[in-house]
């Protein structure tokens, strides 16, 4: 061993790696992946038990279910005008898919704006929040096996300013040579590209600028399974630096206990955390959904409260940003008046009903007191 080379290598490595910019620890993402691993282990354990009990009958069923073929994917040449924010489109088994950037904060014309990539108007992935100095890809995401698209994967990239041409090769699709599509949303200009894919593999890409080009590649997961494992279906796998919001959207007391529901919008999707305390016992539970644009009326999810704390049932979600207040009818004959709580233009509501009850009807009123929508949530 040559000591000077030994020392020089050590010093050089420290210089090189010390200069590496490292993003903050993505605690939420890692813990949710960890929870996914735990859930998968539990499922495997349960599955193994079933196999032991059911024997050959179960084996035959699993084998029979593995005959599905990969969907047939096409990716169209993008329209540089990006009508409606659409920057990529194509077909999967003849069904049209479109990736577009749109505002998921509020209706156009309001001061609030949060740009997100959406697949046919669903499954939002917030764009923005680039890592400083990221080049040539500023941001990106992968979506696998979303509801309604079995076995299909989708991806998008936001490119650095200055990238003029792209060549990329999604697995099973072939070489795509195109210009990135400039989409203006929320006062920002995004250089976008997108694709679909039908099998796992490696995405190779080359980005060209006026000064040269840069090539790299990254693995694409199996599009027939949630990625990362345990991921909520319809949620993009994106970087952890994306912007978001969080805050309490409702609180109150029911049956001698207190409750609170908090919303978090970010890389984990649109999440609602219910916290309850009764008779000195407290706990919390969380429900997440894919990110959606504000509804024309109301869209709520059932939010579970921890078992054994009052048996409460929670509802949390979004309402049309026009909503000044709503009347929520409960199956026990009572009506609750609920005022939405706004976070960056998204109007949230949280409704909690007593044990054994459910929400039966809601009526939405605007600031003038006019009823503008009603129905069963």
């Amino acid at each position, binding site marked *: *061993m*040559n000591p*000077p*080379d*030994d020392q*020089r*290598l*050590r010093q*050089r*490595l*420290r210089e*090189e*790696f010390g200069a*590496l910019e*490292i*993003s*903050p*620890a*993505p*605690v939420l*993402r*890692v*813990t949710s*992946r*960890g*929870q*996914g*691993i*735990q859930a998968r*282990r539990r499922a495997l354990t349960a599955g193994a038990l079933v196999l032991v009990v059911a024997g050959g009958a179960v084996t035959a069923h699993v084998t029979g279910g593995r005959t599905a073929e990969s969907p047939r994917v096409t990716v169209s040449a993008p329209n540089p005008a990006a009508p409606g924010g659409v920057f990529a489109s194509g077909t999967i088994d003849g069904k049209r898919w479109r990736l577009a950037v749109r505002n998921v904060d509020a209706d156009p014309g309001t001061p609030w704006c949060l740009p997100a990539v959406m697949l046919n108007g669903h499954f939002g992935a917030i764009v923005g929040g680039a890592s400083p*100095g*990221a*080049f*040539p890809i500023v941001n990106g995401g992968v979506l696998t096996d979303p509801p309604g698209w079995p076995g299909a994967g989708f991806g998008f990239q936001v490119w650095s300013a200055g990238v003029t*041409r792209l*060549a990329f*090769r999604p697995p099973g699709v072939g*070489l795509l*040579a195109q210009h990135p599509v400039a989409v203006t949303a929320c006062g920002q200009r995004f250089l976008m590209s997108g694709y679909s894919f039908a099998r796992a*593999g*490696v995405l*190779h*890409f*080359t980005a*060209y*600028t006026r*000064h*040269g*080009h*840069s*090539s*790299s*590649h*990254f*693995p694409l997961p199996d599009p027939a399974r949630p990625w*990362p494992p345990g991921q909520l279906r319809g949620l993009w796998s994106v970087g952890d630096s994306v912007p978001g919001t969080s805050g309490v959207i409702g609180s109150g007391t029911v049956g001698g206990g207190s409750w609170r529901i908090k919303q978090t919008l970010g890389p984990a999707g649109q999440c609602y955390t219910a916290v309850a305390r009764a008779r000195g016992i407290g706990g919390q539970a969380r429900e997440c959904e894919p990110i959606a644009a504000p509804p024309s009326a109301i869209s709520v999810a059932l939010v579970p409260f921890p078992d054994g704390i009052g048996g409460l049932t929670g509802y949390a979600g979004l309402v049309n940003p026009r909503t000044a207040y709503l009347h929520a009818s409960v199956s026990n004959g009572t009506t609750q008046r609920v005022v939405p709580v706004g976070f960056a233009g998204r109007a949230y509501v949280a409704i909690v009903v007593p044990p054994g009850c459910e929400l039966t009807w809601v009526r939405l009123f605007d600031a003038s007191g006019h009823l503008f929508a009603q129905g069963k949530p």
Partner: protein
Amino acid sequence: MNATERQQFEEFMTSRWPGLVRLAFGLTGDRWLAEDLAQTALASAYASWRRVRRADDPDAYVRRILINASKSRWRRHHVSEHPAATAPEAALPDPTSSVDDRSALLGALQELPQRQRAVVVLRYLEDLTDAQAAALLGCSASTVRSQAARALAKLRASGALADTDPDDAARRRQAGGTR
């Protein structure tokens, strides 16, 4: 996992994250993959946190997960490790691009066989002893030493260890240095 264990994990993760990303970057040469591998290792650690925190050396435990994940990824994708064929366009090399224009040392590091690369990173970046590196890689300490010697010889031959500071080089020559 209860709230205390979760807090312990979050503190562990926050303090180890930069080191794990650097280690993974050394193994892969790709920052995205590095962060993904670090996330994979920490997510596995989270899923087995009770066992990890009871381990004699939780850091070694997580490093081992990361190295194994890196090996698995390499096995899956080693055929595709080479950069993509570029599109048929003429272009000048871009000195500012982040991927292809990595430093000579990082480039040479990526040319090393996977095990030699791991030995270099563990020995010279992580400052592990031969025995510690051997335990992580599942080989003997003598194998670590021989792999390190081969790696160093290749790095030397590639010119990646050459002096970049002319004054420094001159000082070494005056002092009877080896270069």
